[in-house]
């Protein structure tokens, strides 16, 4: 989850819709089923809303969700 996100969802051309600021990388708290991760994710440097592209959500995240659900 901490690999660079340069998947098709994030082509570097997205900006924050709220304040217009460019997006930056940084550690974000992510949790599911009593487990917390701190992956590096793209987010707005000002508003701090986090950008999750499609192949992260339907790919690695879905995989991890399944694993955690089976625990």
């Amino acid at each position, binding site marked *: 989850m901490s690999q660079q996100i340069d998947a098709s969802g994030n082509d570097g051309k997205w*900006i924050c*819709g709220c304040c217009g600021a460019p997006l930056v990388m940084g*550690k*974000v*708290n992510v949790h599911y089923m009593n487990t917390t991760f701190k992956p590096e994710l793209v*987010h707005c440097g000002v508003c701090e809303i986090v950008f999750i592209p499609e192949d992260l*959500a339907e790919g690695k995240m879905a995989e991890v*969700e399944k694993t955690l659900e089976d*625990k």
Partner: protein
Amino acid sequence: MYGEGDNFYETMDPKELKKLENQCVQEHVAACRAACPFHVDARQFVAHIQKGEWQKARNTLDKSLPFSDILGRICDQVCTSACKRGEVGDPIAVGDLELQCVMMTSSGTRPVCAPSKSLCIAVIGGDLSCMIAAYDLVRKGYTIEMVVQEDRLAAEIKDLPVDMMPSSVIDLETQMLLSLGVRILFKAGTESVETAIDQADAVFIGRHSPEMDFPGIGRDASDRIVVDPLTLRTSVLKVFAGDFSRKQNTRYIILDAVQGRWAAVSIDRFLKNVSLTAAREQERPYKTLLYTPVDGVIPLSKVRPSDPVLGYTADEAKHEADRCLQCECMVCVKSCLYMEQFGGYPKTYTRDMYNSEKVIWGKHPANLLVNSCSMCRLCEEVCPEGFSMADLCLNQRRGMNERGKMPPSAHEFAIDDMLSANSGPVSLVRGHSGMEPSAYLFFSGCQMAGLMPEQLLKVYAYLRLTLDGGVGIALQCCGAPAHWAGRTELMEKNIKDIAGLWETLGRPEVITGCTTCHTVFSEFLPGVKTRTLWEILEQTGLPESGITINRSSALAIHDPCTSRYLEPARQSVRAILHKMDVPTEELTFGREYTRCCGFGGLMANANPELAKEVIDQRAAEHSLDYVTYCAVCRDMLATGGKRAVHLLDLIFGSTGEPDPYAKKAIGHSQRRNNREYTKNLLLQNIFNEAPERDSMVGKGIKLIISPDVREKMENRRILDDDVREVISQCRENRNFFLHKETGYYLGFHTPVNVTFWVEYSETDSGIRIHNAYCHRMKIGKVVIP
């Protein structure tokens, strides 16, 4: 999680596990092995010969058969009386195959002896039973003295053809016994016998013992030594003898020889001072519990050897071996794709679930196994012992819920669907007029309401017209999703609600439009009189309008899985089709052997990939178009590309589609919206009421969704209303991203457990959706560096 008065679900205890495991007979031995006095694994033996693996076949034989160089040549194949191939042709000539095998190979056995005990056993006689007794007991460390009247061992078979049984064979076996330390006294006289018996700690007397009087040992009227049939003990405590009491003309070489093995067991136990009788049920030939049906197997006769004395050539032997059925059960696995996919069978699945249940910290490997079962009960019908995967999986699911170990994604969408169907704006409960008691209550089922609004209206109107005493309506979910999901408390609440509305409406007779609802009523509301819609329609007769859909060819009947135990309903369906002159054909897996469409047990929710394969398999079972009488079955068949029609479409005519058989699956969003549409249809057309609120159907943000995006949304279970919520939230809170080049927005929103992401752009005619996806992980705050 635990409500007041909830039953605490106990995990499987070892006794329960064993009971369930024992119901599955797959691991029982094949009939041949059970019938063989030496319990040779004849199935494995023959399997090796099928592949031309002669030495492996020999090794298998040697595991169970002592002196295989001798006995393999003269085996009288007791197994043939039990061989299942014998029910469809001739039994496998295992004895002939053994002859070939021992002539072509040598024994790989290197017998070892246990550390020497100081106890001495006298074996009186040199026949095969004595040789085997000596062989078994010397290997346990006892000192063995054989006292033999003749000048050689196995003298009873000395007259066999030399080509088949060279004398060297017996010489070699004799050498082997001597090398193990057995003492053999040939040409022994009476005195030697008496001395040996006197000095020994235990004695075995074989068949061809010297004709003499054994003092104190009782004989019967035919002068045979009397022995206990199980222990083979004579009237003298330390003396054991073979039971050779069969008539002379039914001489069985193997059954005589094996007396030595059985007596050796008794002698060993006697000298160890333990029970002679305990746990010996499967020592003797017995009938196996393994079930191997032979229907459909083409009968085949035995291959005749070209040489009657020397037997088969290697090629002939292989052809004979090929006739072997390789008996196993696996009947349920062969009938059910779910059971086949997980690679095991009920016994192993029970164990897998037991082990998974016991895990406290770490992965529960059996979760998907437990949640993928459609609970259709086909396995119970085909299994000779009635093993129930449904009961097993349901118990597991209940336990997982109670322990907080149920994966949330397994059933959430289906439960949401159920709760939505029972929610105020969508559900409807009425008596014939207002809330007056009515003689009947039409319980259509939530799927009919979601998938077939117009047909529901027509059939309800028809029931109101033809039945006396008034017909009410309940648009509700019976709770089957909660039941399948193992959500006991939710199910109980739902049942209570249904019981309440039944009371309010004056305890009407319930007419179920769905066989699943019917089974829920039967199990959870047994006090309510219930009949299926089909039995009612057969009784009332059909509307005049009749079929408007032309039929030139027959239809194959797909019985929904929950019709399995509803024979009257299935009969009524067929009677109705017959009355309408619709020619029909039966599926092999039809009627009480019907297969689930994949919706049952929430399989489609928990394991969509499996459900897709299941429906593809079902669709391929017959080339004809299907007719069914379950709304969701028809929809599932459509997802598999199968041309199928619902019985109500035939009875009431199609609802305007040019080809109702090709009608596409409805989709999750439309199904949800349809329920409110159905309610409003009834309010307006039957009850002359205005809708309770302005229908949200079709209102709100207009979405433009391409087929590709629609497919993604269907697979990901993202509803139109979920998308609308994201967009309206984004407009309010401005939590979205903007693409610099395309100008697309990408917004997100987390209503409850799932976060939905929608990529969209605003146009004049509505919002165009470019993409939609979701995840369950919750995104928290950015970590301050």
